[in-house]
Structure formats: C-alpha cells, structure tokens
C-alpha cells in the first residue's frame, strides 16, 4: 500500500496544482505534498517495512496479462528515499524563485515525482515502461518551458534520444513477454526465464541502449551537458540527482537478473565504454568554464564508474553502487543548489568571471566546500565509501579498468578544486563586490544535505543494511 501511496500522492497533488491560481499557494501546496511523500517514505522504511504493507497487486490489463504490481526491496526503498528527499529540498531551496506560471511548474514537478516513484516500485514490466515514460513527459515540458535561450532544441534532443531508447526497450519487453510461459509481464516471471545466450545477447542491447541513454554512458551522452545547462536548475536537479539513477536502477533491476549470460558476455564492452566515458568526461570537465557544464561532465564520470561497477558483477561493487546512487544524488543536488544561488546573486555561471565569493558569503562557501569534497570522494564523506567499494569491486574484474578509473578520480579533484578556488577564493572582482549571503532557505537545505553526507560518510552501515537484500539477491543470481 505504501508503494501505491508514493505514486498517488504526488500524482493527485500534481494534477490539483494545475488548478491553483495563486503562485504562493501552489508553492506551499507542493512543499506540503512533497513533505507528505517524504513522511510516507520514512514510514515505509522504518515502521511499516514488511512485505504486505509495501506491496500491492491488482488486475490491470487482463487481455495482455499485465498487472498493477508494485513492490519495494532495499534498492527501491533507497531510491524512493532519494526521490522523496530531493523534491522538498528543491522546493525549499528555490522557494524564493519566481517562475512564470508557477502552478504549472510545480504541477509538472510533482507529476515527475509520481513517475519516478512508479519506476522505482513497479514490479511489472509494462507498468515499469508506463512510469518510465510518465517521468519523461513532465520533465520535457519543464525543461522546455523554463530555462535558457537554446532550451527548446536541447531538450528536444534529449527527448528524442530517450524516446528512441524507450521504444527499443519496449521491443525487448514484448520479446521477453512472449517467452514467459503464461504470457505475463510480471517481474518474477521475467526472472524465471531461461533464455539461450543468443537471445539474451540481442535483448540485452535493446534494454541496455535505453538505460545507457538515460544514465548517460559514453557514446550516448551527448544530450546531457546541453540539457543540464539550458534547463532551469530545479529541473536539472531532478534530471541529474534522481533521473539518471533510473538508468542505473533499471540495469540492476531488469537487466542483470533477467539476462545474466549476456551481462557476463558483454561486461568487458560495457566496462570499456564506461571507463572511456569517465576519462573523456573528466578531460572535458577540466576545460569547462561554466559551473553547470562542469557539474554535468563530472556527473557523467561518476555515473560511468557506477555502470562499470555493476558489470564487474560482485557483491562489493554492487554495495558501492547502491551507496553511491544515494550519495551522488545528495551530493550533486548540493552542487546545483550552490550553482543556482551563485548565479542568482551574481548573474553569471562562468567561474572565470567570479572570485572572492568566500569573503562575501562565508556560510555558502563552507557548505559548498563540503559538497566539493564529497564530489572528489574525500574520506568521511559518503561518496568515499561508495567509490571505494566500487573501485574494489572493479579491481576484482580488471586491474587496468580500475587504474583508469583511479586516474579519473584524480582528475575530479583537479577540476572540482579549481572551480572552488576560482569561484570562492582570491580577490573579489567587480561582479562579486556587492554580493550578500545566500538566502536562509538555501543555507538550511545545504546544511541538511551536508549533514546527510557526513553522517553516512562516517557511518554508512544503515544504507548498506537497507540494500542488503537486493545485493544478496543479485549476487545469488
């Protein structure tokens, strides 16, 4: 029941938001409903965390044998938690922003949350496909309506890319559907399939391309920097903190257990692609002068490591991926919020034009430092634990891949600290002369995110325990 509530609350709240006339009322309404989702998620994790509270199953399309089945395992809970944290965080941090047609903006955001929650809890392939697309449509409208000059073209590229990927996945889903004995889309039936290596081979690519576009993995990443740069920050946070995790999640949920032979067969190709992407993105990030573009490329590098660690196929790597999905989400959210705050105050995103911000906004500088250190995976931040485990997992598969990934970590340090230095340290320049401290909302949200990062950096065990069942299940396969 909890899993259905997680979809229904934002869905209904989102539809209602469209009918709210006043801007401030729609803001308050969306903050309240996103906090309600957070409360429900926490209840689902800590109080009603047994199967019959979480799961739901009802007939949907009888002629096709598709059921509205939702369930939550550890990984679902983790990502639902991430989604549930990120939306109120976005709403509160950007509370002072004025959007044109605010009710539509918040309505679309909440619909997007409904889609994301659906993706994470769906246990029926057709249902999963439905939510996968349902999350895409609102974000398309969000990014195209509010944002930079070239937003329409950039978002459109993103949409066509992901839509093509989704359709390929649909072919894969239908193919598997006909292979199940009683023609059903149920996840359990998909898991029970015993396909030949050849069949698994091409179904693998149908699925993988869809997920690789979403994550994105080199060479399917070209939509990402443009879209991140052109979208409004709230939408960018949704895209990079939560939506890219859909791809990682979907690989663990729908590819690894269903097509194990193809996974081990194609592991080397995927790992090479991921690691190449990491190296490529890191080098490009060094040359960037725009905060948003830099974070976008850095994000590609982080996701590449997650993908590689999944395909290394061992428990340690997988544990790392679980941790990192969560902590990267929190971390990148913090980075975007700072980027937004700085842009609002100074009117530029180019850090060559900035300098000395630390003198003017010391609190923001301190919080940003935590985010940057988490981005470079310094020990005592939660990313460190995740990256360490992932590198450990990858090492068991291939030493060379790990070496290249390790180089990328050094590169991350280079460009992240460079950005920090240019933006916040040194002498103030004309733009930053009269800048005041960021708003209280931003500081509070960043403080909470920083606490999450440090707490789980010191003591990551709760997250590992939460996702233990998923890891055991996947490694058991």
């Amino acid at each position, binding site marked *: 029941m909890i899993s259905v509530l997680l979809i229904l609350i934002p869905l209904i709240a989102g539809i209602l938001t469209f009918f709210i006339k006043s801007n401030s009322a729609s803001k308050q309404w969306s903050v309240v409903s996103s906090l309600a989702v957070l409360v429900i998620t926490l209840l689902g994790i800590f109080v009603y965390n047994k199967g019959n509270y979480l799961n739901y199953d009802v007939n949907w*399309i*009888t*002629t*096709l044998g598709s059921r509205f089945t939702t369930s939550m395992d550890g990984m679902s809970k983790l990502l639902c938690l991430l989604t549930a944290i990120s939306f109120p965080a976005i709403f509160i941090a950007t509370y002072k922003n004025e959007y044109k047609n605010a009710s539509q903006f918040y309505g679309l955001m909440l619909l997007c949350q409904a889609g994301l929650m659906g993706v994470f809890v769906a246990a029926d392939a057709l249902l999963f*496909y*439905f939510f996968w*697309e*349902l999350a895409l*449509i609102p974000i398309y*409208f969000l990014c*195209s*309506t509010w944002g930079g000059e070239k*937003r*329409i073209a950039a978002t*459109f590229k993103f*949409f*066509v890319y992901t*839509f*093509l990927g989704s*359709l*390929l996945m*649909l*072919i894969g889903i*239908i*193919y598997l*559907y*006909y292979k199940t004995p009683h023609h059903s889309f149920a996840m359990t039936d998909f898991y029970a399939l015993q396909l030949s290596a050849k069949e698994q081979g*091409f179904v693998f690519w149908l699925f993988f391309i869809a997920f690789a576009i979403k994550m994105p993995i080199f060479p399917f990443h070209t939509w990402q920097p443009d879209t991140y740069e052109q979208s409004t920050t709230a939408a960018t946070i949704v895209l990079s903190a939560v939506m890219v995790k859909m791809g990682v999640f979907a690989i663990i949920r729908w590819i690894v257990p269903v097509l194990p032979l193809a996974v081990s067969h194609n592991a080397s190709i995927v790992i090479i692609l991921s690691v190449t992407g990491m190296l490529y993105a890191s080098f490009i990030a060094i040359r960037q002068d725009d905060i948003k573009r830099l974070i976008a490329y850095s994000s590609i590098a982080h996701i590449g490591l997650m993908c590689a660690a999944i395909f290394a196929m061992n428990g340690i790597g997988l544990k790392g991926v679980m941790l990192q999905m969560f902590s990267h989400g929190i971390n990148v959210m913090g980075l975007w919020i700072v980027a937004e705050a700085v842009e609002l105050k100074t009117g530029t995103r180019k850090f060559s034009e900035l300098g000395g911000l630390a003198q003017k906004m010391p609190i923001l500088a301190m919080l940003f430092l935590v985010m940057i250190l988490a981005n470079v995976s310094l020990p005592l931040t939660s990313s460190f634990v995740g990256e360490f485990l992932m590198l450990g997992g990858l090492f068991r598969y291939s030493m060379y891949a790990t070496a290249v990934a390790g180089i990328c970590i050094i590169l991350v340090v280079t460009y992240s600290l460079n950005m920090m230095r240019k933006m916040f340290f040194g002498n103030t320049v004309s733009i930053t002369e009269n800048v005041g401290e960021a708003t209280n909302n931003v500081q509070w949200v960043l403080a909470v995110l920083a606490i999450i990062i440090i707490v789980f950096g010191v003591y990551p065990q709760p997250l590992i325990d939460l996702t233990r069942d998923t890891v055991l299940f996947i490694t058991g396969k």
Partner: protein
Amino acid sequence: MNAIIISALMGVLMMFTSIITSNKQVIKNVALIALLFLLVGNIVDTYNIFSIKVDTKGMLSFGKFGLYFNTLIIAATTIFVLLSGNEIVKTGDYAADYFALIFFVLCGIAILSSFNNLLMMFLGVEIMSIPLYILTGSAKKNLKSNEASLKYFLMGAFSTGIMLMGIALMYGATGSFGIQAIKLVDNELSFTKVMQTPLLEVIGLLLVYAAMLFKVSAAPFHFWAPDVYDGAPSAFASFMATIVKAAGFIALINLFFLKAVELHYLWKMVTVLVIITTLIIGNITAVFQQSVKRMLAYSSIAHAGFMMFALYAQNDIAKEGILIYTVAYSLATIGLFAILAKMDDYSLEGYNGMAKTQPLLAFANAIFLLSLAGIPLTVGFFAKYYMLAAVLKFSGGFGLFLTITGVVFAAVSVYYYFRVLQAMYFKEGDAKVADVTVGFKLGLMLCIAAIIFFGIFPDVLLAWFYF
C-alpha cells in the same frame, strides 16, 4: 446486414431533408440522430438481437469482427460530425447532400467489412470512393479543392481499373469470384508450389493488392494523398484520412487473412517492402513540412505503414491491434483536423503561443499529438504496442528487423509532432483561432477523456469485441 441497409436508407433520407428544411443546424442534427440510429442498428445486429436477413448467396458474411469494426467506424463518424459538423455545413450550399454522401461512404465501408466475394469487394470500394470524389471537390469555388477532386478522381479511376483487371485475371485462373478460391493464401505451399500456381492468379492478386494499397495511401501508391488531403476542405480531409483509410485496411484484412489461412512468406516479403517504403516516405517527408495540414497528410501515410504491420503479422493480436489503431488514430486525427479547421493560418507559425490564447484547444492538440506519437497513457501507445506485439509474436523472418525499423521511424515521427507542440507551448505568438462553441469544447473533452481512458484500460475496447 443492418448497417448496409440502414446507412443506404439514411443517405436517401438525408437527401430529402433538404426539401423540407434549409436550416443547416437542423440538417446537422438530423444527421447526428441518423448516425446514432445507424449505430444502434449495427449494435443490435452484433449481438443478434435484431438483424435484417437477406440471402446474398454467400457473397457477404457477417462476422463479429466486421460488425464490431462497423460500430467503431460509425462511432468515429459520429464524433467527426459532432466536432466538424459546423465546418461541413459551411463548406457549400448543399449541406444535406454532404451528409447523404457520408452515409453512402459508410454503406460502402459496411460492405468492405463483410465481403466474401471479389465482386462485393469491388462494389464496396466503389460505393465508398465515388462519394469521396464529390466531397473532396465540395468547396466548389476553391481552385485547390477542385484540383484535388479531379486528381483524386483520375487516380482513383485508374486504380479501379487496375483492381478490375486483377479480379478478372483471378477469375480467369480460379473460375470463381469467391475469396476462398484464392489458392495463393496458403502457408503449406512450398516455394516450388508457389511457382507452379498459375501466373494469372499471382498477377491478379498483386493487382488487387496494389489497388487496395492505393486506397490506404501506402507507398509507392501514395502520391495522391498529400495533395488531396491538402486541397480538400479540412473536415473531409480528416474523414478521408481516418475512417476511409481504416476501411481500406479492413478490406485488406478481409481479403488476406480473416477467411483464409496465413500468407506465404513471399507475400510477406512484398508487405515488408511496402511497409518500409511507406514508413520512410511518410515520416521523412513529414519532417520537412511547414504546413500542419500537409504534415498531417504525410503522417497519415506514415500511420498507414504502421497499420500494415497487421497485414504482415496476420494473427489475433493483429486483428485486435487494427481495431485499437483505428480508434487511436481516428480520435486523434479527427480532433487535430477539427481544431485545424478553426485556425486562420495552417502553417506551424500559426500555432505559436496557442497555449496562452486557447489553453483548452492547445491541451487537446497536445493530447492528440502525444497519442499519435505513441506516448503511454494515451491509446496511441497501445495502438503501437499491439502492432509491435503482433509482429514479434510471429518471431521468425523479418519480425525483429521490422519492429526496430518501426520504432526508429516512430522516433522520427516525434520530431514533427513535437514541433507543433513546441509552437503551441514554448514559442511566443498570438495564434488566431475562430470562436468555438461550448459543444465543440465538450466534444474535444470527450475525445481527450476517451484517449486517456483507453490509454489506461485498452481492455475495455476489446472487451466489447469479445462480449
């Protein structure tokens, strides 16, 4: 038999209403009532409550599939008249006659959904086509409409000739007009046996196939479609692009796989070639259109390509799929054309900023476009789903290749549908739309509700079929 007889009678009735009254609104309402009567007449026939029996010597046979298809078509026509009725009566001075012609088209469609004999098929195609030539030219003082009508008539007459030639050749080879006599449609035949079948029969069937492909505007017989849809009054263009096209498919399905066994793979090769050329030509050309009306014309060619998946697959899923596709495609296209007819400017720029000036119309357009693009939560998704599933079920041969080609072009189609969406929602402008009545808005909301409802519960559509 009900649908054939009632629609013909209603057509005559409509002709006489013009003697009694010249009030166009009254005529429109009479037509709506007549359509509802026809709908009820067909439904009671479907469930064997009351049906007029005429001995056709086995030339017509009324299966559930055909009758249900009639129901969908008549319902779609009702929605079409609801939304575009005012446009129809405004086209020219002979409002009642236009409705009479529409009823005759429906009569032809009812024959096409039930023929068992090539002669009947020919009759159905002609009864359906001749009123269309007139409707295309109904804007008498518009040169483009006249040109379209003449073009359609000449090309149509040519294809009729080809079809008759084919039927004659098949009669020569088999000695019968019955479609059961066509021996080619037999999967058991080996390659050498196909080679041994009389050449006359092969050529005959190919000619009939080509003539029917002309009617559904599949490539390479599509050249008439864009000009005719563009030139014809918008209301009739949407009628031709949706209802008439679906009827063409029902005829093809009747001919090829309802009453006979599965086609030989050589025939499937022909179908695959036609599908791929249709998809390429329809989609790629649509991308370059600046006029929304022409874009919809090419998109209708592209959708013909998708509907042909059913002909390739030839299984139960394909039959269900063509029903859902008819509903999805008709609802969306009729709605789009109905709004288009109210616009000042048919170009893409004409749609700029529509979301601000006319939020409901823009939202309706958006839903129709999303449905045509095949986005989940709209019935258009299940239309595409069924077509893909039908082909994948027949997993051998070109199945996988064909579906991948299909989805690549589905992604291309997103490009031109979303350009309209972008114009409406993300571009500044001042879209000029004629005043719309409350009834029109209600009709649109009905369409939106149907698209979303069937997009979540496609079962309901099929449940009526199996009831």
